[in-house]
């Protein structure tokens, strides 16, 4: 029986060691899997090799991972925002490595990772600092930069609807990096607003087919104060 539903968050993270590469989907708060980020924090896994477009903000969600010192490296396109003081502090003290790249390059590297394409040429960043030290090649008279695929041990995904096969839909602009990360991660853990019966999602409207999904949970609210639990055990 093909049933990706699960009730035990600890099971979803079992066997994952320190230093794991984890991709977290979302853009702003849209499509951000907050319950799973909290579960990752609770798992105690540290030295995370984190891939996320943004750095989060405030005290909750992604921001809690940085504040708890769990992240060894962040790969993103935009580390500024409400978290920039914390980011600057971690980077200048040498406690966290930061790799920044163009947003479309990040998205395509993740897409390539999920689709079995080891590398690709892109016109983005040709002639800029980002391209320094990278292989370049001319196609149709234009310079391109070689970029490699990104994969991860864990992918954290936020869906609107899911079924037990792991088929997913996303709402509005909450799709963003979610289907890309679902495909690129070896273990894709999903939280969904609602788990529906097989067939309730029209096959035409599946945004991420179940083959990419390993665990499906129903989203539960995470209380504001519980984001500070790590401070008690730290």
């Amino acid at each position, binding site marked *: 029986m093909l049933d990706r539903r699960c009730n035990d968050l600890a099971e979803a993270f079992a066997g994952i060691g320190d230093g794991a590469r984890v991709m977290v989907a979302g*853009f*702003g*708060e*849209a*499509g951000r899997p907050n319950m799973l980020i909290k579960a990752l924090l609770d798992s105690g896994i540290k030295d995370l090799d984190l891939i996320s*477009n943004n750095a989060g903000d405030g005290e909750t969600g992604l921001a809690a991972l940085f504040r708890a010192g769990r992240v060894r490296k962040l790969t993103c*396109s*935009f*580390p*500024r925002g409400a978290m*920039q003081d914390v*980011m*600057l502090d971690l*980077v*200048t003290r040498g406690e966290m490595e*930061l790799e*920044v*790249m*163009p*947003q*479309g*390059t990040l*998205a*395509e590297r*993740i*897409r390539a990772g999920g689709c079995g394409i080891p590398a690709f040429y*892109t*016109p*983005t*960043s*040709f*002639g*800029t*600092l*980002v391209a320094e030290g990278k292989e370049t090649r001319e196609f149709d008279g234009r310079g391109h930069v070689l970029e490699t695929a990104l994969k991860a041990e864990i992918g954290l995904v936020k869906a609107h609807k899911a079924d037990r096969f792991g088929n997913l839909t996303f*709402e*509005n*602009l*909450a*799709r*963003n*990096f*979610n*289907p*890309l990360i679902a495909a690129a991660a070896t273990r894709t853990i999903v939280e969904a607003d609602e788990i529906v019966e097989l067939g309730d999602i029209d096959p035409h409207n599946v*945004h991420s087919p179940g083959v990419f999904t390993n665990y499906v949970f129903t989203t539960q609210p995470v209380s504001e104060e519980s984001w500070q639990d790590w401070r008690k055990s730290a």
Partner: protein
Amino acid sequence: MTPLTRDGIAARLAQDIEDGWHVNLGIGMPELVANYLPEGREILLHSENGILGMGPYPEEKDIDWTLINAGKKPITTVRGASFFDHAWSFGIVRGGHLELCVLGGYQVAPNGDLANWARRADDPLPSIGGAMDLAAGAQRIYVMMTHTDKNGGLKVVDKCSYPLTGAGVVRRLFTDLCVIDVADGQFTVTDMIAGLSRDELQARTGAPLRFADKVATLGNLAAA
């Protein structure tokens, strides 16, 4: 002379967006352009987080945090809008499917180079976002910015000293003083505000300016 306001620059730039174009408005000053799209032209706005057909900010009661733009501000959708994931969205960008992208700028040079993401090469928190993909991918790039910085420092320069966002990409530059076509390694002024001489404009510019046969007067279209 009265330099244009930010809204004035946005209103003038909007005149140069054609009916039927798909357009990305960068974060910051370019977002203002959405308020001045000419009546009667059907223009679809793209946001790199996954929408074509972005509408104006919603009323407070209608805010939905799954409906946001690249600047993470709430938006609405227009009839006929579409949603897609980040890979498709940047496929639209890199694939040359957007007729126009409007970006802000720190520096623009006559060879079309644009610097708009970092003021130093060793920035500890470099923040690129979607700007490099947009610069490389859209069919044309318009830049809008003040002609000089707050201290009178030059931004329209002979060569960019800040790290580049894109090399040779700028098609047209809209400032608070003038409109400049960027082609063949040269700046050509097509519009200027009243009360400013060509010599005065040249003095505020770090590269030689040519002037079109007919230079239009740059009025404040946002004041109407």
